[in-house]
């Protein structure tokens, strides 16, 4: 009797919970009525965040029926939160998109809207090849906002004070020599936020890009590398050798990448470190961490130097794309229209200024005025092929790859040990 009551009560509660869950579904697909959308982006600071407020306001003014609620998610928390939201069928309508295998996983799970037919023809023709980074099997799953090549962002003042010329850094040996001079001038030569793992792993990506042939490096971004190719071990060895020269800031293992003055970007912003290897978002990130929150005036750029005996093209670059996708449940065409809106030339110019970055829409390219960003754009023009970050390209397995590189940098494993860990992670 009592037991049965309990069962009934539990069943009732379960039903109630289940019903509450159901009542949230079925958004109006052909929306003429008022629509509200949630929007997750990772521009947690300063001008970037202001840009999105502006864009949302301008879009809402033009479409009074549409309301967009912005939620800012810190970059390091974004992927985990997004995955949790998707598992809970609670995906934000518009969300930040890194592309690569991460996007492919979301698409395979049916969580991303196919917006192929909703892309504005003008935007499509202007972005041209740029749209390929958010396209799978001919279907478009998002719109890119920027193109972000990677290299060294350095303080020209600190380089001058140490008597180092960036133009002279052609090889890794040059970089080691420059680091030595910078160290004796009293600053940390290279800032590294290894606590977040991926900034450390980017060093391995760069060495891999230099050591491995184009075909082998591309195989890595396709998730099918031949890890027995000696170039991968060579890449890990060059990284270990480079670390042994002690070019990184003291305590790089417990340094984070982007948060606060003590982060690696913050060290560059406050002239505590001379340079950092990072993607092109770094101009904006460093800018938000300077004392006056303006871009660092003496920030300049040089590409990753060459390694001797490498099989890859020595001017190839690693790069990423930022972009945005619509969830499978987002009201259409409202969501796609917002993506079309910020991909327009006028909005992309504002975007490029606010984030100090290279816009995905080439018609807005003249908005790039930052001297460092101009140098990065120039280097990108000379790059014969450009590969996506390995961790993004590999999806969730990329985290394991990143961990192995940190273990190598920490001296916990040697190059062979790190390679074994990577093999296990990608198996």
């Amino acid at each position, binding site marked *: 009797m*009592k037991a049965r009551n309990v069962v009934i009560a*539990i069943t009732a509660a379960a039903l109630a919970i289940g019903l509450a869950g159901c009542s949230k579904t079925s958004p109006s697909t052909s929306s003429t009525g008022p629509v509200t959308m949630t929007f997750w982006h990772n521009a947690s600071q300063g001008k970037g965040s202001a840009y999105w407020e502006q864009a949302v306001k301008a879009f809402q003014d033009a479409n009074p029926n549409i309301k967009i609620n912005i939620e800012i998610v810190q970059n390091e928390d974004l992927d985990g939160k997004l995955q949790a939201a998707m598992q809970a069928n609670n995906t934000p309508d518009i969300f930040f998109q890194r592309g690569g295998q991460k996007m492919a996983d979301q698409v395979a799970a*049916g969580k991303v809207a196919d917006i192929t037919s909703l892309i504005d023809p003008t935007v499509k023709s202007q972005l041209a090849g740029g749209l390929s980074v958010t396209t799978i099997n001919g279907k478009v799953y998002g719109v890119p906002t920027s193109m972000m090549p990677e290299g060294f962002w350095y303080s020209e003042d600190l380089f001058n004070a140490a008597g180092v010329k960036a133009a002279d850094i052609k090889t890794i040996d040059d970089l080691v020599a420059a680091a030595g001079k910078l160290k004796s001038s009293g600053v940390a030569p290279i800032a590294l936020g290894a606590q977040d793992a991926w900034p450390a792993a980017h060093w391995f990506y760069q060495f891999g890009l230099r050591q491995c042939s184009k075909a082998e490096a591309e195989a890595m971004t396709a998730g099918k590398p031949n890890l027995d190719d000696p170039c991968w071990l060579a890449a890990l060895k060059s990284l270990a050798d480079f670390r042994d020269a002690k070019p990184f800031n003291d305590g790089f*293992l417990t340094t984070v990448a982007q948060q*606060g003055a003590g982060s690696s970007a913050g060290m560059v912003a406050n002239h505590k470190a001379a340079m950092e290897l990072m993607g092109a978002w770094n101009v904006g990130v460093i800018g938000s961490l300077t004392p006056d929150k303006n871009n660092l005036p003496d920030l300049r750029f040089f590409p990753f130097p060459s390694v001797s005996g490498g099989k890859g093209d020595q001017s190839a670059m690693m790069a990423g794309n930022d972009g945005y996708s619509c969830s499978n449940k987002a009201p259409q065409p409202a969501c796609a229209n917002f993506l079309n809106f910020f991909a327009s030339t006028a909005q992309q110019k504002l975007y490029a200024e606010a984030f100090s970055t290279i816009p995905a829409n080439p018609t807005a390219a003249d908005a790039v005025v930052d001297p460092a960003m101009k140098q990065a754009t120039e280097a990108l023009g000379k790059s014969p092929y450009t590969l996506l970050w390995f961790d993004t390209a590999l999806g969730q397995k990329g985290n394991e790859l*990143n961990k192995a590189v940190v273990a190598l940098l920490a001296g916990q494993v040697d190059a062979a040990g790190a390679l074994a860990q990577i093999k296990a992670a990608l198996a």
Partner: protein
Amino acid sequence: MGGGAKVPPPTARRAHKPGTSGWRANLEIGLLSGPAIIIFLTFVIAPVFVALYYSFYNWQGWGPARPDQYVGWGNYTWTLTNKFFWQAVGHNGFIMVVGLIMQGPLAVLVALLLNQKMRGRSLIRVLVFVPYVISEAIAGIGLRLMLRDDGAMNALLGTKISWLANPKIAIWTLMCILAWKYLGFAIILMLAGLQGIPEELSEAGAVDGATYWQIQWHIMLPLLKPTIKIWAFLSIIGSMQLFDLVYIIWGQYIAGIAGVSTMAWFMAGEGRLSGELGRGSAIAIIVFMISLFVAVVYQRFVLNRDTEGALTEPAKKAR
């Protein structure tokens, strides 16, 4: 679980009360305990079984697990043959043992001290308790900043020590942080225990010519035993479950390298961060079994024996 076991006795007593019919009493019990039972079953017991179910699947969390994702004991063998998991288990064990040794005697001494009548006693009691009240997140972020290589601690001491990154030092840094954070709780517990001891006992000892330390050693400490055992139990459970401070101070990647990884940290990394939720469920079940084993052994061999001896009234044969 303990709460559930305590429910029946009132039932029995109520039912015998004259004038209350059986169905009314049942209704009352149902209404009062129902919500708690439902919440407990829904959010504690059911998830354990859900985790058990998913632990047999190679499941990434996109929709329900499919039959072709069934991997049997695969996730369990993966975990149990993973050397990083056993490293984490070792760290948990180390934290458990060293935590007891570091905090126990210190807490008893401070509690004895604070049990004296002295000036500023209530202020000291509050101060001792402050670290425990600060949230783990705030304490963690603050300590992370202070203990960096170029942080306040090295600046203060004029040293160049990697408090967090050097594997030989980091675990002791963690032990000191834990002692700082949770000592206040231990002291308050001991103090409450001491104040439950009737003053006549120590007075009688004093009259018989015992010195202060003899009184503490031969009278207070034995009577404080039940409290110490309960504290040790809580401390052990806390050590097994330790996650937040490690995750906040060392982040999601480097705790293993710094030699401070714990089982829960390992689970978060291999389960959630890597997106392998099925594997994470298996790790959760293993951690649950380990914790349950430790808790049951402690209950059976330390706590039970204790309650018998500690009761001043004639021991009623419990259960």
